[in-house]
């Protein structure tokens, strides 16, 4: 799979913290990477060049902050990939990808609605699915006590850790205990 190898190399060049290989049959992903927030756009650009399309943006609350997962798929060949980035609760700001993938605009607005994260550079940052006068807490925010640590969610397949700070976050072995595979 040279496409994936190239992609992994590109991501490393962009400054990815972790690049993981996944078992597609189990995780539904082939390759994923954690990038610093700053490098997200560059990493996505590599995907755009490789002919990938943005499927969705899925934000998730973990103990360490908001983990945004961008799923990409290539129309030419099978192989879903994901980009992740972690932003702290105090500064929930992410770069918008809508300059690269125009479809990202709506996904980002949806995430802003549900989690209260902000995407700077989004051309039309108004509520998408929630009403404009919605005044509750973002509906998908969890109770702080119910938050799981990143290491407990088994997100990282077979990781190649490039940023030592992430070794601790991912935890031992990448996959948590209790995994049947």
């Amino acid at each position, binding site marked *: 799979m040279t496409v994936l190898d190239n992609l992994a190399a590109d991501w490393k060049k962009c400054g990815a913290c972790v690049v993981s290989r996944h078992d597609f049959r189990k995780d539904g992903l082939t390759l994923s990477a954690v990038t610093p927030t700053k490098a997200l756009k560059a990493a996505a650009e590599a995907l755009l060049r490789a002919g990938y399309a943005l499927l969705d943006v*899925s934000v998730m609350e973990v103990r360490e902050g908001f983990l945004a997962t961008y799923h990409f798929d290539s129309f030419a060949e099978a192989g879903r990939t*994901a980009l992740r980035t972690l932003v702290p609760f105090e500064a929930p700001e992410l770069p918008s990808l809508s300059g690269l993938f*125009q479809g990202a605009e709506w996904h980002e607005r949806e995430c802003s609605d549900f989690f209260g994260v902000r995407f700077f550079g989004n051309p039309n940052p108004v509520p*998408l699915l929630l009403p404009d006068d919605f005044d509750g807490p973002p509906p998908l925010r969890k109770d702080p006590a119910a938050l799981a640590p990143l290491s407990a969610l088994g997100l990282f397949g077979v990781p190649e850790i490039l940023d030592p700070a992430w070794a601790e976050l991912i935890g031992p072995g990448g996959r948590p205990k209790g995994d*049947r595979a």
Partner: protein
Amino acid sequence: MSGLGFINPFGVRELPGTTTGDFYTANFAQKAQPGRVILNLGPQHPSTHGVLRILAEMEGEYVWRAEPVLGYLHRMHERMAEVKTPQQFLPNMGRVDYLHPLAWNWAYVGAVEKLAGLEPPERAQWLRTLSCELNRISSHLLWWGAFVMDLGGVTPILYAFEEREKINDILQIITGSRLTMSYFRLGGVCADADDRFLALTREFVPYLRERLKMYRGLVTDNVILRRRLEGVGPIDVDMCRRYGATGPVLRAAGSPNDLRRDVPYGTYPQHDFWPATGFPDDCFGRYLVRLAEIESSLDIVEQAVRGLPPGPIMVDKPPKANFKMPAGETYFAVEGARGQVGVHLVSDGGKNPYRVKLRAPGFSNLSLFAEAAQGTLLADAVAILGSLDLVIPEIDR
């Protein structure tokens, strides 16, 4: 005239002291050029199929800028997924997209099964394929009727409903319901196919093939329809990629992308079919792709009825009420009638999922409407909107 930069060339007077429209209109009007009218199509408009709202900046009959406004049918399914066990959340999936509920059933069940390492028995797999394809046909049929209705032909939808009723009757035998079906279970399906189901399905396939010929004469070959659609709203592969559009929209654009072929799941590798491609990338191409898909689904149904193996329809030890998913993450996608239906499931090992993200194909497909409709006539914009095959509950979730 109001202070929102909204200038009305026809002199239709606004009430003094009131602003024009609500928050979204005001937001949209900020970028409007003077001399153009802002038209609200929806949320109650005959061609928005439910409660979609389109803001359009018009110059005469031309749409210069359009912006869909969503959320009128938002129900926060993703939150419900976090507070319910997978078994309890299953009926929700039939309500996300009421036209192709079994694809959503499959996407969610498949994701949980992947995570839990469950492998449904052979017969259950075949039944899943069979029912999902029947459901896809009924979804496309309804789209066909509704699309022609968008173009002003009211009669075809009634003919489509005749067939749809037959499919509903057939699917009701196994699923028990006619609309918001919840048929798949973790590790299998909930009811077995009986002889009546199989007999009716066998009868139905040649019947619909015969009716498709009538569709061709009545609608497909009709000169008015062809001239309304040919060359209208071209959407190419690059545009699909930028917006993440999938399904018939993408296949009409020329990419043979079909998850049933590319990432085979269920029994699709054992079926002889090929994604419909080779059509023009305009509205007419999208129309033809869906009609071709009805035919290919009929082939799959025929093969599935013939090849349905005997055996159990549930795994030996089906998940009980205290079922806990192992911690982990998975993404499972199936090919729905509108495109890739994806479920991103994260579990922390508890009873309820930690996070469920539902990827609705219609959401991405609709997001390209603004670009596709730019500079078209109002009637063409309506045609483009119809050709995207929108199901609003799925988009709003």
